[in-house]
């Protein structure tokens, strides 16, 4: 019997999944296709299950099931959340999650000339020059702004639900320019209700909060969102200078960015302030109002 995405038990045994075929390998886990499950699902199998906090992972699964149907749909729209743990002899081997949809992937041309399909990570939004070298499209200013609005919306939802992302970095956010959607991945590194994440936290270099480089708090997520806004708009891998984004933001946006990049956590705005700004800018975009900012392409 096939494991269905719609009626998924919170805990599954490996034998219920049938054979699995590796699709990709990461630093801590492999992602595998599952023979006896809905093709929309994949298994994330940990290399070292002993370092995983099984209770924290089970908590993430249970929390999702306790959401209202609308909230659960919202969550599944913006994140590859753990849907069910896969367990054997009381230990967690991995978990099932939704397969990343094709629109969040892209074909790149490597320096050797070989073509490869990769996840469309936000790291491809940081340099037009590198995008050209990889022969991938680089969204214009307006589309990059819409992707930023989508990330703000996602973060607003998560913070409202007391989820802290922790390692908010361009490797953990996927995007689709056509639908202006983002998809957050590596959700097993997120923190629910101030409790530890299932996987030991990792922090991407140059995407750290100087006030708390090893910590995970909502104010740290806002700092990293500030880095994201700055670097995606200004085309930079490492800048922390809010003024670089001045030509690309309106007055309120620039004020929010400066405050978000404050070294003092309590001086940073909450995500709601960003969400209000994004909603206003998005409405302005839809009305096709001319903006009072200039936006030179990077």
């Amino acid at each position: 019997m096939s494991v269905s995405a719609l009626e998924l038990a919170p805990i599954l045994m490996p034998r219920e999944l049938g054979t699995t075929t590796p699709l990709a390998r990461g630093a801590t886990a492999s992602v595998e296709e599952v023979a006896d499950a809905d093709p929309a699902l994949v298994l994330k199998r940990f290399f070292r299950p002993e370092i995983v906090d099984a209770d924290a992972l089970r908590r993430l699964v249970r929390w999702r099931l306790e959401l209202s149907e609308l909230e659960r749909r919202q969550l599944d729209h913006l994140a590859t959340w753990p849907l069910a743990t896969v367990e054997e002899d009381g230990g967690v081997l991995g978990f099932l999650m939704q397969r990343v949809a094709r629109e969040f992937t892209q074909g790149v041309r490597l320096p050797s000339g070989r073509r490869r399909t990769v996840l469309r990570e936000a790291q491809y939004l940081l340099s037009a020059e590198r995008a050209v070298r990889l022969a991938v499209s680089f969204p214009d200013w307006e589309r990059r702004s819409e992707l930023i609005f989508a990330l703000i919306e996602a973060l607003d939802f998560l913070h409202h639900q007391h989820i802290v992302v922790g390692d908010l970095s361009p490797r953990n956010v996927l995007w689709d320019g056509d639908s202006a959607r983002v998809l957050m991945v590596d959700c097993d590194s997120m923190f629910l209700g101030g409790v530890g994440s299932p996987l030991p936290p990792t922090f991407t270099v140059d995407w750290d909060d100087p006030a708390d480089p090893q910590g995970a708090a909502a104010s740290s997520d806002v700092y990293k969102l500030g880095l994201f806004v700055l670097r995606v708009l200004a085309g930079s891998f490492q800048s922390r200078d809010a003024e670089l984004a001045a030509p690309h933001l309106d007055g309120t946006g620039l004020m929010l960015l400066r405050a978000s990049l404050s070294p003092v956590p309590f001086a940073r705005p909450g995500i709601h302030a960003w969400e209000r700004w994004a909603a206003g800018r998005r409405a302005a975009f839809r009305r096709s109002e001319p903006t009072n900012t200039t936006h030179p392409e990077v």
Partner: protein
Amino acid sequence: MATETPAKAKILPFYLLIDVSFSMTEDGKIEAANKIVKELRNALAEHPVVADKVRFGIIDFSEDSQVVVPLCDLSMFTQETSFAPRGGTSYVAAFNTTRQQIEQDVDQLKADGFDVHRPAVFFISDGLPTDEEQDWSAAFQSLTSYDRATKSGFAYFPNVIPFGIGATPDVLRELIHPRDRSKCYFMKDGSNAGEVLSSMAQILIQSTLMSGASFGSGGPGFVLPDDSSLGENVVVADYEDLL
């Protein structure tokens, strides 16, 4: 409202130090070595965030040692590179050139305003050194020794990860640095050397990508892939394992 002073960009320098003695022409080893550079360039180009943080230099060695690719963003390096086999296997030449190059590169990166993390050296050899043991051992000490108290030795000493295809484990063991954090990789008996080198290239690429994404928080500066992800023709060992 005050914003943070822009931090210095962090850079993690890597060096590939590769044996090009005549024996590398056997079993497809030199072809596999040439492929490493192509695969590394592909992997870095595919990961722009890592490519921005990592700089790669390539040095070969035989009876002498030469800089094949100066330290650079390898993903942007467009020149074709290929290794030319020569005679001899001088570890002394290899370590001396590497020390000299690291010193020059780190000084330059610092002068350019970068925050430079400790370099890492991937050392690949298919044979035993043709130098006297005391000579190559002294050259390795000169590359890797530093006394913080007296500030004597080489302050930019690198982490060293040795890979051996034919080099014996007791020699490779001496090149693990630091002994408590690094490891060495060698060929499983009966394997094809060219294929082993391809497996080792994957280890090296994974290590580069993982290190480039996570260095900078007081960690060792390099990350080695999980042992379970190694090819079946490669054996991994730490210093204690080989005593």
